[in-house]
């Protein structure tokens, strides 16, 4: 199920399926009366039983509720921090949205810090809002990212890395130890033992953008060979 659609194309398969059962339309598709119309250019995907979406190479992040993103704290304003997540508007982050934070016990977050947070409010009419705790009040993997290096990539690459069956990170861990956080806003934070390794990691990840799953182990191996020979 891979074909390219352009804005304005009708998706007849989805329309036909909709006559018999419920159909879920993902990003890039919208419904106009009885018609299903693409509104973004890209590859049309179909997942059984009833989901359709268009995968496109957008560069600019549009906040989506529940996504994990990497942001930079830009300001501290009263009870909230302003965080730049690369979207059209800065996200707000309450100082109480950290693990074991209370009114007296403020988290140590300063402008310039890198954060890994989850969007809990992302509506087109509202300012995006971040939290650094999960629903049970634990920080999990979220919070301030210390040291390391942040690089930008395309949104497509960020989604690709996080796909369950993507072998990239699995292969990279065979070569060297490192920490990584991938934000769906197209930012990747990496921390390796040395600068050399960080640069190598970054290059390996960026090179994976156009690689197929079969090529990825080769790229990782190459990087490993160059580094440790």
């Amino acid at each position, binding site marked *: 199920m891979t*074909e390219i659609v352009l804005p*304005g194309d009708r998706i007849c398969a989805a329309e036909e399926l909709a006559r018999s059962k419920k159909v879920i339309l993902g990003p890039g598709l919208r419904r106009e009366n009885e018609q299903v119309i693409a509104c973004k250019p890209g590859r049309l995907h179909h997942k059984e039983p009833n989901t359709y979406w268009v995968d496109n190479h957008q*560069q600019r992040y549009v906040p989506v509720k529940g996504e994990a993103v990497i942001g930079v704290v830009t300001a501290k304003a009263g009870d909230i921090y302003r965080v730049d997540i690369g979207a059209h508007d800065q996200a707000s982050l309450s100082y109480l949205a950290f693990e074991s934070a209370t009114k007296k016990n403020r988290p140590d977050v300063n402008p310039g810090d890198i954060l890994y947070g989850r969007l809990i409010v992302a509506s087109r009419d509202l300012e995006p809002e971040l939290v650094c705790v999960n629903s049970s009040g634990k920080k999990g993997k979220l919070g301030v990212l210390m040291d390391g290096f942040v690089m930008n990539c395309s949104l497509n690459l960020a989604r690709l890395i996080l796909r369950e069956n993507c072998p990239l990170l699995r292969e990279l861990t065979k070569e060297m130890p490192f920490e990584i956080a991938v934000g769906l806003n197209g930012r990747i934070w990496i921390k390796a033992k040395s600068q050399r390794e960080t640069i190598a990691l970054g290059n390996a990840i960026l090179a994976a953008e156009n690689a197929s799953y079969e090529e990825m182990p080769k790229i990782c191996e190459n990087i490993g060979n160059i580094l440790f020979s």
Partner: protein
Amino acid sequence: MVTPPDSITMDTQGSNVVLQDLKLRQINCELNPLTRSDGSALFTQGGTCVLTSMLGPVEVKSQNLNIEKAHVECIYRPKAGIPTIEDKLTETVIRDTCESALLTMLHPRTAIFIQIQELDDRCGIEACAINGACLALLIGGVPMKFTIAAVHCIVDKDDKVVLDPDHCEAIGKRASFVFVFDSLDKNLVTVHTSGRFRMGQFNDAECMSRAASQIIFNFYRRIISNFHNKSLLTADSKARNTEVESVVKSEQMDI
């Protein structure tokens, strides 16, 4: 499973347009020549060349803020000097045309910027700029209702309607038209005319342009397919440039 846009339908009744006459100049395109914009395209039609880029949806200035829809802004830069009144008019035409194609209500309280840098004007710069802007918007991935294709037409000194002329053919032209069509039913989105012409000539020109717009729509589809089959967003600039070249080469179009 995707229905392509309706095939070329031409109403040749009462006009002396012959289908074989429909020739556009060679179209070429390079995608994402600029790295820092959200989408950019280097678009050429014959000798006319523009560099377009788009940014958005991004933060909007408070005086332009619209709670219903995105604010669309177009900046047109001529080859040399500062923009003149005429360039400002072109800018407005492009802005309104693009806005009608964009689904601006999906991104309220944001701005979408379109920048157009004229590189070479060998006739038909306005049509070229609109087509380039449309490609940049497609690459940028902002939601759109349909794609748009602009076709330039003139009435030459012998009172003949000429489709997409180059600068030699356009010497002594009596009138010029720019028609913009949508990809759904080939309805007119924009008409921009100047000079003196008869209604019959206008209808001829519209008819020819409508049929010729299909060439541009086919080009969009091919170049977007290529883009998605082989993404050009590699970090390695060397690999990127060679890839771009090969794509551009394969995109040569003889019509």
